[in-house]
């Protein structure tokens, strides 16, 4: 099982000091967090994609992830999420394949639609087309990574004739894809159809919502013949804040909770902990709660936590990562591994996908005309 963190890159005023980071400070802090994820022995760092304040998340996550790839050796770099609706699938195919090469395959990505209405028209799109955009764009992206010469006609972009997306995916193997959705069964259906992973954010809403979506995805994964329902590839989010003494955790986190984006100024911390998977307490409480996710999500492959939002200072975030790495994840690794039946697979990695494809395949497409850059397929 993989453990890691996902960030939304929010630039939020620290309510206890009134201080707000500059974009520069937030961006550099994000890189520090990613390096710490590797240092403490976690497995995954995932970044959101944003195009508007109050976020300093990259507009193109591959820029940040390439920088982190150069400073780490082991962790998987991922997204939470890559906007499949407003990005051109051609650019996604090219950028993430390039990142695969730079990161030696330590890359996967999570597709999301984005729920901020005003963002869509900035990229010539309309939020009301969210689901059809996600379906059409991903169908093209999927093809671009797998076929050298692509003919394509769809509703949302200009047609392609004999187009070769380059660079080709590393070793001829497309990065693994997760599809994230909180409450749209259509996206769980999409993930199941392709045999891709399904990720539930599992933060802001009751766990019962995640349970329903995961159950549906598993059923459909089996329906499409990718394996049995319990072999489907599931990821969950989560939100934790820990101190040795649980009351200290509650006291320290409360002002951040009360003023947080999304749910701040709403329910009390206690109510929200009861209603959603938020856990503020001791490392032991986090361990017990996380093991409990399995009761409704089944044996799952990836657990990502949100630890750096709502204005928490970098120092505190790094302390949280220390606690995760030293006290929480080693126990969870052991416990989850002991519970997982042998026929349930781990999350796919570049290495496992290369193995499944029968070994690495040198897939460079050499251009035949270096003046016009014309694709070989059209010559």
């Amino acid at each position, binding site marked *: 099982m993989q453990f890691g963190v996902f960030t939304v890159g929010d630039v939020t005023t620290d309510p206890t000091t009134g201080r707000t980071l500059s974009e520069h400070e937030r961006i550099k802090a994000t890189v520090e967090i990613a390096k710490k994820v590797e240092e403490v022995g976690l497995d995954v760092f995932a970044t959101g994609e944003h195009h508007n304040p109050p976020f300093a998340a990259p507009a193109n996550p591959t820029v940040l992830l390439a920088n982190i790839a150069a400073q780490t050796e082991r962790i998987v770099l991922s997204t939470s999420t890559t906007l499949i609706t407003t990005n051109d699938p051609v650019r996604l195919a090219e950028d993430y394949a390039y990142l695969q090469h730079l990161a030696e395959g330590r890359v996967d990505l999570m597709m999301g639609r984005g729920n901020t209405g005003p963002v869509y028209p900035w990229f010539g799109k309309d939020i009301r087309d969210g689901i059809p955009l996600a379906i059409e764009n991903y169908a093209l992206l999927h093809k671009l990574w797998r076929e050298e010469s692509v003919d394509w006609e769809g509703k949302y972009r200009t047609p392609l004739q004999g187009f070769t997306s380059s660079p080709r995916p590393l070793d001829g193997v497309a990065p693994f894809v997760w599809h994230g959705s909180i409450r749209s069964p*259509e996206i769980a*259906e999409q993930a199941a159809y392709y045999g891709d992973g399904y990720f539930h954010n599992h933060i802001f809403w009751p766990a019962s919502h995640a349970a329903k979506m995961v159950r549906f995805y598993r059923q459909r994964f089996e329906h499409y013949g990718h394996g049995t329902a319990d072999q489907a590839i599931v990821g969950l989010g989560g939100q934790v804040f820990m101190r040795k003494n649980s009351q200290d955790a509650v006291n320290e986190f409360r002002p951040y909770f009360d003023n947080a984006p999304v749910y701040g100024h*709403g329910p009390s911390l206690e109510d929200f902990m009861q209603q959603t998977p938020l856990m503020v307490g001791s490392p032991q409480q986090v361990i017990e709660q996380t093991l409990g996710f399995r009761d409704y999500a089944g044996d799952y492959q990836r657990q990502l936590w949100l630890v750096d939002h709502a204005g928490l200072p970098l120092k505190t975030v790094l302390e949280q990562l220390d606690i995760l790495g030293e006290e929480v994840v080693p126990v969870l690794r052991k416990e989850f591994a002991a519970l997982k039946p042998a026929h349930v697979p781990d999350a796919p990695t570049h290495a496992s996908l290369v193995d499944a494809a029968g070994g690495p395949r040198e897939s460079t497409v050499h251009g035949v005309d270096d003046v016009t850059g014309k694709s070989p397929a059209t010559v």
Partner: protein
Amino acid sequence: MTLKIAVVTAGLSDPSSTRLLADQLAAETVRRLESSGREVDVDVIELRPLAHNLADFMLTGFASGDLEGALASVAHADAVIAVSPVFTASYSGLFKMFFDALDNDALDGTPVLIAATAGTARHSLVLEHALRPMFAYLKAVVVPTGVFAASEDFGSTNGGALTGRVQRAARQLVALLADEAPSRAQRPVKVTIDNPEDTPDFASMLAAASR
């Protein structure tokens, strides 16, 4: 099949004239349905105890506590009786918040009887300029007679005018619940996490997207 009637009442005091009017409308509706041999199940939803859950809903986007059940009850009702006090020339904020929290397709085709209470009869058009357009937006079938009651209607019989309006409105609501009217179960469903099995097959979604 038992008919489900949800009564939404936004009165704040106890006793509340809004609740009183809601009860009169519900009782008259039930009496008429039962006298024609129908079985009726009435669920009265007082909004006051849901006020905190509604404020939380505005901020978190999910229904906590009893709000989830209350919204489901209205969404699955065969008919709704909705009664608000008039605050500052319109329905109360609490009343509006409840319907803001409801999915916009939840009342598609549902017969709704609208009613309001106020301290003065000068607010009587609130039903026409506030409640009726809101339920029209929600695609509900609003009963032609709305029932408005001011303080003086509860104080005097006034020739039974209020009672007459209650009876007429209930009669019109019951007429919309005739046997041949499509029940909720027959209406098209919107896919949500509560009915993921209704999600279209992926091949058809893909075909529709690229059409």
